[in-house]
């Protein structure tokens, strides 16, 4: 061990493994990816980006991706808020039960979940059979192998990611603030809109960001529940890498996605304040 650490701090050495891990396994591969998107370091070219910019089908895929992920985010965050609210304001026993309900699907493989939804939602699946049998509908509803199916599957997967940051903020909220609002004349509804919601809104944005960023990378769920008819960006990248072997295009699309994600984080954190987004008050 070095007698004199890097700086006056004796524990700087402990940071080294993590730093090496991040640099070696994360930053360097990303650097390679960026290099690849420019056609390699020897002969840099913008042709892959030009192709991204010029191809209509890629534009449609980008649009579809952002539309599905955006819709998923909104639904997941609203549902997550409701679940988190229930969890934060119920008895200890019920809280545990609800926590389990949220966590158990969280532990299941994404593949298993997507296939389970397929079984439930396909034309001769349980949901359609039940509706047909009860006479409510005459023909099976198109619940899957379309955008709706993808959104259902993604929302189901992503709700827990929305629940936990919102729940943490709600639990940390001083109950006396709501009592104070009531004491000065606010109805329960006004207390919610004037005090509770504004104070949990940063967590809502934070959860939305988390869900959105996760959602952009979704690959298995759209592939299965979209039935090949809904192509999202990740799937297109995968096809480019594995089937059409256009690695440069795949890299360029990945970089576009990465930059879009970073820009989004920057905007949301500017609007809500990073510290508040991360749960600090």
């Amino acid at each position: 061990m070095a007698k004199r650490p890097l700086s006056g701090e004796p524990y700087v050495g402990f940071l080294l493994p993590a730093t090496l891990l991040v640099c070696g396994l994360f930053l360097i591969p990303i650097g390679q990816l960026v290099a690849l998107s420019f056609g390699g370091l020897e002969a840099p070219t913008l042709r892959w980006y030009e192709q991204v910019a010029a191809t209509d089908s890629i534009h449609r895929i980008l649009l579809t991706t952002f539309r599905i992920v955006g819709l998923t985010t909104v639904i997941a965050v609203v549902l997550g808020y409701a679940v988190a609210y229930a969890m934060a304001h119920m008895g200890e026993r019920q809280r545990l039960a609800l926590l389990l309900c949220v966590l158990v699907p969280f532990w299941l493989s994404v593949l298993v979940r997507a296939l389970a939804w397929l079984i439930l939602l396909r034309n001769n699946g349980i949901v359609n059979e039940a509706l047909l049998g009860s006479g409510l509908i005459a023909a099976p509803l198109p619940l899957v192998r379309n955008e709706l199916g993808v959104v259902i599957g993604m929302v189901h997967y992503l709700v827990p990611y929305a629940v936990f940051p919102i729940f943490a903020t709600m639990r940390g909220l001083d109950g006396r603030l709501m009592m104070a609002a009531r004491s000065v004349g606010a109805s329960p509804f006004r207390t919610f809109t004037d005090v509770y919601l504004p104070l949990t809104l940063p967590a809502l944005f934070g959860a939305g960001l988390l869900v959105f960023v996760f959602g952009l990378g979704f690959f298995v769920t759209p592939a299965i529940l979209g039935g090949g008819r809904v192509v999202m960006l990740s799937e297109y990248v995968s096809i480019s890498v594995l089937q059409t072997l256009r690695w440069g295009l795949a890299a360029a699309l990945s970089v576009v996605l990465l930059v879009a994600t970073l820009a989004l984080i920057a905007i949301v954190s500017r609007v809500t304040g990073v510290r508040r987004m991360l749960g600090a008050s």
Partner: protein
Amino acid sequence: MTVTSSVPGAVPPPSTEVGPRIEPRIALSIRDLTKRYGSVAAIDRLSLDIASGEFLSLLGPSGSGKSTILMAIAGFVDPDGGDILLDGQPVGGLPPEKRGFGVVFQGYALFPHMTVRGNIAYPLKLRGIRGAELDRRVERAIDLVHLQAFAARMPRQLSGGQQQRVALARALVFDPAVVLLDEPLSALDKKLRAELQFELKSLHQRLGTTFVNVTHDQEEAMTMSDRIVILRDGRVQQTGTPDALYNTPATRFVADFLGRANFLDGVAGSVSGGCLTIDIDGASVRHRLRDGEPRMGRTALLALRPERLSVLAPDAAVGDRNRVEGRVVTSAFVGSQHIHVVETPLGVLEAHTPAFGAGVLRKPGEAVALAWPWDGGVLVEDR
């Protein structure tokens, strides 16, 4: 109408009302209020009348139920029994927002996402007050608590004392008939607390609003209150003016909780010339009975305030006073007073003597005599 306070139960209620009576009109009346948590009664059939314009403190150790009482009045604790009457009207069935009390919460509970002005304006906005009227009343409240320079700040940018004032202004701005304060000064340091005690008191005098204050700090209660209710285990121990409670406590608990006290536990002897003789382990002391002072039967428990004791040289003449010899165990100089702890045949006694003039700080081990006038103590119940 009289101001009463009683401790119902198996034991006949002792006369807990001492000191001058407060003028009639009752602002807030609590009748047989009860709140149980499992088998424990946080509030045990408590009855209390609070006069209009009064500054009343609920004083007790933690777990005495004082905050629970306040939260039950405010509407945040659902009592298991009893009534709460505001100006004669029951409010027990109303939600907190319909009761119209101003509440200052422990830790202030300022809305962190609103400015000082926003916090203070919020109660008025809820009442549909807008425009010039809103501005006028908010400014008046801000002036009242001297926060003109801080109106645009966020609560987290304020010191504890300033936050306390915002909380107070928010509780006062809509002119509530009764203001409830839950340990309003407990989060502040001692010096600031002392300042704000007087500020709160003068504010109360200017406004004439009824204040109900919860505290565990006996000094705070004595400084600010017209009347103090001493609570223990959800029951009223004694009610009275600070002066009356301090000088004529009814029980050992009250004497011990409000200020410091020495207790002499003895056997009651004969009465002669208005003085009761109390035998304590062979020694005997005299106690001049006040008019109507109850004698406690065979045993007598005498509470003796430390400042009533004089610390003298062993050979000093004491005149018509009780006298006991002893040896100093420990002593300290605390600014205005000398504190002596003296081992005597009557037990270990604490004496507080003036530190100025002829005051001498005696060292541990020194032989001294303690003396106190015959009317220096008060007989209390042993509970």
